[in-house]
């Protein structure tokens, strides 16, 4: 296995730096506009999977006129194959807390929350200790900001930003209509910045080292580094910080087990890339001039030739059918139709042409579902069915 120079490692997130107090004090005395410009020029995009420009998000919230605003750290990491946020919160929590507080300074929010998924209950104690220490320091430097943990209770859909707000408001985690958007009307109807844990950790890097250090990593449209959660048929499962823009072929060279049949990029909501497309696929937010590129939360699951793609798809569809909030027709019924549909084709109850009808259905789900869950089912469904059609039928 050759280590291709294209696969560039980075080391910002987990670098153990005990300077959060200094970073906090320094940055809350900088004018908010300066910090916003820093983020915008870094071209940092959300690391939870949606890839929205972070600087713009903070800017819109800062410009909203309201006495009450909120900063929420989305730690409802539930995408299959993703486990990086857990690691960040246990290894370098102060970076995240500092970032939340700086966001508060930029937007005018006085309260920050960490929405922590129920499955990560065991992180609570240590995290609360860190928060106590953090708030103590804030008081010392006269910075009015509190951070609290809000626990989830087992609902993947609560990772969707508006569903998260509903959950924090004591209701069912059903996504809202957009517009309005969170930066103008979020938690309790107030302007809210909601960012993924990793995104906030990157803002810490940017505020510490300046936007250029971040911008210099990666490629056009996909600046900076990202954490990748690697699992499946790999001799090196774990979390790796890599520059964006690498080709999937290089990635598989490094992390595959020499028998990699396909890679699921971005979890169940992402795309399955078959071996024949590794070379033309780049990991980032927008394609280079050639080939495709994929937005991603960084989940990379490798499958070797012993794995049945039918089982993989079946597993994903069961997941979506269960975790869907159930309010909108295309997702609630669509997921059930897809789940039963592939079973029926496999058992011979429906013929192979029915697969095409299902593909059309996923298109409709993509266009009409109310939130990202329903909209993304098409990604894995179409990429698996199109590339491994025979495995669906025989």
């Amino acid at each position, binding site marked *: 296995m050759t280590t291709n120079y294209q696969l560039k490692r980075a080391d910002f997130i987990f670098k153990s730096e005990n300077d959060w107090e200094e970073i906090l004090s320094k940055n809350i005395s900088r004018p908010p506009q300066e910090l916003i410009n820093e983020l915008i020029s870094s071209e940092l995009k959300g690391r939870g999977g949606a890839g929205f420009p972070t600087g713009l998000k903070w800017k819109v919230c800062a410009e909203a006129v309201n006495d009450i605003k909120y900063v929420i750290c989305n730690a409802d990491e539930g995408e299959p194959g993703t486990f990086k946020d857990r690691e960040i919160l246990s290894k370098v929590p102060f970076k995240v807390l500092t970032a939340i507080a700086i966001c508060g300074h930029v937007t005018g929010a006085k309260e920050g929350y960490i929405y922590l998924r129920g499955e990560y209950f065991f992180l609570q104690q240590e995290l609360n200790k860190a928060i106590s220490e953090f708030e103590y320091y804030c008081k010392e430097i006269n910075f009015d900001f509190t951070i609290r943990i809000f626990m989830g209770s087992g609902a993947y859909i609560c990772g969707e930003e508006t569903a998260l707000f509903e959950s924090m*408001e004591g209701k069912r985690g059903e996504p809202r209509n957009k517009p309005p958007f969170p930066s103008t009307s979020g938690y309790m109807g107030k302007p809210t910045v909601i960012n993924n844990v990793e995104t906030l950790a990157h803002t810490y890097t940017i505020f510490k080292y300046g936007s250029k250090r971040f911008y210099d990593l990666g490629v056009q449209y996909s600046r900076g580094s990202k954490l990748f*959660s690697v699992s499946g048929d790999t001799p090196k499962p774990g979390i790796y910080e890599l520059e964006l823009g690498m080709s999937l072929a290089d990635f598989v060279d490094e992390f595959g087990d020499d028998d990699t049949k396909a890679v699921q990029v971005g979890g169940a909501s992402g795309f399955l890339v078959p071996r024949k497309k590794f070379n033309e696929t780049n990991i980032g937010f927008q394609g280079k001039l050639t080939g495709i590129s994929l937005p991603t939360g960084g989940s990379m699951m490798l499958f070797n030739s012993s794995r049945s793609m039918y089982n993989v798809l079946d597993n994903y569809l069961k997941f979506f059918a269960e975790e869907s909030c159930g309010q909108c027709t295309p997702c609630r019924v669509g997921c059930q139709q897809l789940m039963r549909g592939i079973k029926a084709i496999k058992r011979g109850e429906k013929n192979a042409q029915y697969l095409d009808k299902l593909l059309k259905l996923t298109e409709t789900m993509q266009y009409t579902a109310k939130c990202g869950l329903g909209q993304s089912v098409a990604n894995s469904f179409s990429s698996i069915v199109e590339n491994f059609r025979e495995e669906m039928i025989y």
Partner: protein
Amino acid sequence: MMKPITELIKDLADQYGRNRHNLLPILQGVVEQEKYLSEYSMIEIARELDLPAAEVFGTATFYSFLEYKKMGRNIIRICKTITCSMKGENQVLLAIQEMLKIGVGETTPDGNFTLLQTNCLGFCHKAPAMLINNDVYNELTPEKVREILSIYLNKKREEVANDN
């Protein structure tokens, strides 16, 4: 010593508040002690927060970890998402079923264990993984899971012995 439910709910409401947005932590607090939300608990929460009972029910049943059916003292949640499934979740599940003599969704007659499946726990690089209550166990094998369950069973035997 476990508090009676009405007192528990009142204390939770004192701690968190009595507004709608305080509902989830209160539900979680009751589940923490009782392992599930009974009809009675939900009605008491509705009363304490001045909410309709149906709203409390509708909200609670949305969340997978807010059980509304009676549960055992130790709730096993084994991950069934793709990586854990690939890495041997099935064998581990069989080992548990064999050892405890219950199937998925069932509770042991002595009320010690309930066996459930859940979705991705975020330990895919150390699959297969499971939760018992709030504790995570990963890199499971049938042997390892038997060891883990034995510890719980021994703990229970000690408790029973101490009571006698």
